[in-house]
């Protein structure tokens, strides 16, 4: 036996071996795709076996053997066309044309009694090449659409189909080109083996190949599912998990239904956002959930005709589903779907259950996390309330001490020496501290109202410049000159005017309190993108950089506030911030160049630049405002 013959023999044994494996597989699964795979490999394997047997019994070259071999080999493209249909679907005429061509070739071969005439050779090569090319293109396209293991399977098949054409062309070349015959024929045989191997891997991948191909996606699923336990957005977590599950199967899609036992519904995350709810027994998913068992529907529209349209729209011809359960608690259901049944491989049901239980663990972890953070939030709220009360009590006690002490002093003096006049300084102290108490109480109530979100009530269109001018006029009445700079055109914002005036008064009073003695604060109005911007500028002590974020917190007082004069609760800027935020605006502190504080308030402009009240200017003077659609979240 020559080396060539040995290689050829090994090759042929491999063909037959693969066929036996695939046939065994088909006998067990009994699906159309597995029969077609067996037919594909069987055509080659039986033809190979036949030629061997014929050689042993001395019948090689006999016309009947040649004819039978040709017919067996043309079963290969026929089977391939059927597989294209199984995995991707193909037009009916292609199927019919394939069957007709198969029959015609068979009849021609029988009629010619095994003599390979030139027209028959051309027709056979044409049939093989056309089908191989078609299959290669369809599977290549399919592989580009698919993910994960399915992409690898389709790629293997597409490569197999391309190599298959080369093998067939080689086989015929080997017959036609005499001197190179044996070597070309051997190369063709090897190519055919590669093609058949590729088909085998693509159409009926053995377990170890499935595991290897699925491993990266499965690993990703498990990794993601651990991370997703901490993702706050439930919708985002579920849709990402669905994507990961679909990838692990190489399927078109997956959906996770979350059960609400009390309402007897299952809800699903919609891709565009939001949720849709269904009774917990509808769809194939509902069956898996209510019956608490895994469900396989090879033809979903047929299995659940009421929702046939929904399955078709989702590209869910085949659906497999498993309940998600932990510790006997029914959490939901996981379904995975594909356009074609053969996309799913043998152990996908086992994988489905694995992913369902992993999903169950994740959902359970999320529930626990949610419970924990809810508890934490409640504790935080309670703690804040306690801190609020304690800080408020602290700040009320100081003026109360003075009022009480001075009153007792007066009482004692009155008893000891009734003839003496009342101490005017003590009286003044009582009045001042009582007023301070009144203001503190008002401030506290105000902060509480803002906390409850019921402080900013009536918003109506007003010109921000006009509001600023009103503040200036009011202070001018008290002998304080504030310089105001406003643009020519009105800047209209929907505001609760008394509240915005309160904010401006507060900032101006701060500027007076912390600014240099006799120095007047400056107020400037501008309009960056979509906002009316009011800046209140002083040249006073400023605020240490590290504290500029915190000054807007409740009860926070800058460390250098004491240096000047301090009677407040530390609520003023907090109240300002809340009011501005309720207007969808923002407030921040900047350092004034050369020292001091600049408070910047941005209030959203009205989308239509209308003017408020009677102050309607010539429209020609009104500059167009660029309205930004996006609101910047405050830092």
């Amino acid at each position, binding site marked *: 036996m020559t080396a060539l013959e040995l290689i050829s023999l090994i090759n042929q044994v491999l063909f037959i071996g693969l066929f036996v494996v695939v046939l065994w597989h088909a006998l067990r699964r009994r699906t159309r795709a597995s029969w077609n795979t067996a037919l594909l490999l069987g055509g080659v394997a039986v033809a190979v076996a036949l030629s061997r047997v014929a050689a042993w019994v001395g019948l090689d070259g006999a016309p009947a053997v040649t004819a039978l071999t040709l017919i067996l080999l043309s079963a290969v493209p026929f089977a391939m066309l059927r597989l294209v249909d199984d995995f991707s679907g193909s037009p009916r005429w292609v199927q019919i044309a394939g069957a007709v061509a198969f029959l015609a070739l068979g009849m021609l071969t029988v009629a010619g009694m095994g003599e390979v005439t030139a027209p028959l050779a051309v027709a056979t090569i044409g049939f093989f090449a056309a089908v191989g090319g078609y299959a290669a293109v369809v599977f290549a396209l399919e592989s580009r659409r698919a993910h994960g293991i399915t992409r690898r399977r389709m790629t293997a098949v597409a490569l197999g189909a391309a190599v298959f054409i080369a093998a067939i062309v080689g086989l015929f070349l080997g017959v036609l080109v005499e001197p190179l015959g044996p070597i070309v024929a051997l190369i063709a045989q090897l190519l055919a083996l590669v093609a058949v191997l590729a088909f085998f891997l693509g159409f009926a991948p053995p377990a170890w190949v499935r595991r290897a191909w699925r491993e990266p996606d499965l690993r990703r699923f498990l990794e993601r599912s651990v991370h997703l336990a901490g993702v706050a957005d439930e919708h985002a977590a579920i849709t990402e998990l669905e994507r990961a599950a679909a990838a692990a199967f190489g399927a078109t899609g997956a959906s996770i239904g979350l059960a609400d036992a009390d309402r007897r519904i299952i809800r699903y995350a919609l891709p565009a956002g939001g949720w849709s709810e269904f009774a917990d027994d509808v769809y194939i998913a509902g069956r898996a959930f209510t019956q608490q068992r895994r469900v396989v529907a090879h033809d979903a529209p047929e299995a659940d005709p009421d929702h046939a349209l929904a399955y078709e729209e989702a590209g869910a011809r085949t659906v497999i589903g498993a309940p998600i359960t932990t510790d006997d608690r029914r959490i939901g259901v996981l379904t995975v779907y594909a356009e074609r049944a053969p996309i799913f491989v043998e152990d996908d049901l086992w994988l489905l259950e694995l992913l369902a239980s992993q999903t169950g663990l994740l959902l359970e972890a999320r529930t626990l996390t949610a419970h924990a953070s809810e508890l934490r939030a409640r504790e935080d709220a309670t703690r804040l309330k306690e801190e609020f009360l304690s800080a408020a009590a602290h700040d009320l006690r*100081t003026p109360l001490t*003075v009022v009480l002490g001075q009153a007792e002093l007066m009482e004692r003096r009155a008893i000891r020496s009734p003839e003496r006049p009342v101490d005017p300084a003590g009286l003044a102290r009582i009045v001042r501290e009582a007023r301070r108490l009144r203001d503190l109480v008002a401030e506290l109530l105000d902060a509480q109202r803002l906390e409850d979100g019921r402080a900013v009530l009536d918003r109506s269109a007003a010109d921000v410049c006009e509001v600023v001018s009103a503040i200036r006029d009011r202070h001018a009445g008290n002998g304080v000159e504030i310089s105001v700079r406003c643009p020519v055109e009105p800047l209209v914002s929907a505001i609760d005017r008394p509240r915005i005036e309160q904010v401006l008064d507060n900032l101006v009073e701060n500027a007076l309190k912390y600014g240099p003695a006799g120095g007047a604060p400056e107020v400037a109005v501008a309009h960056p993108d979509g906002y009316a911007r009011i800046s209140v500028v002083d040249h006073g002590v400023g605020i240490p950089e590290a504290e500029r974020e915190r000054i807007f917190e409740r009860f926070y007082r800058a460390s250098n506030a004491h240096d000047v004069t301090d009677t407040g609760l530390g609520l003023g800027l907090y109240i300002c911030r809340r009011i501005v935020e309720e207007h969808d605006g923002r407030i921040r502190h900047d350092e004034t160049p050369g020292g001091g504080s600049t408070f910047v308030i941005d209030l959203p402009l009205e989308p239509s630049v209308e003017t408020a009240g009677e102050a309607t200017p010539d429209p020609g003077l009104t500059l167009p405002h660029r309205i930004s659609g996006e609101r910047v979240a405050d830092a």
Partner: protein
Amino acid sequence: MPDLRVLVVDDEVGIRATVSAMLEIEGYAVAEAANGADALAALENDPPDVILLDMRMPVLDGWAFAAEMRRRNHAIPIVVMTAARDAARWAGEVAATAFIAKPFGYDDLIAAVEQASLT
């Protein structure tokens, strides 16, 4: 209790004035300081017999003042006066003889100062 000198340390001028007036009626000699640093200066010039000490003050707070005072080997009894909830704990922290929680009345103040002056 004449001839006893009391130093009132508080950043609130209203509190200082009220406490001083009460103590003067009872015959104490009173000095005032607006924070811990001023109080340390007063300590050097004219050491008092009792110190009435607010805790939260700018520049130098009650804790820092008490520590510095002891470092300088003064053993003057301290009465903590504060509006905070933690008055008793803070009093312990600065080893005060007594504490009074704001708002305190005339009798509370005098009783605390008398108690401190006896130690």
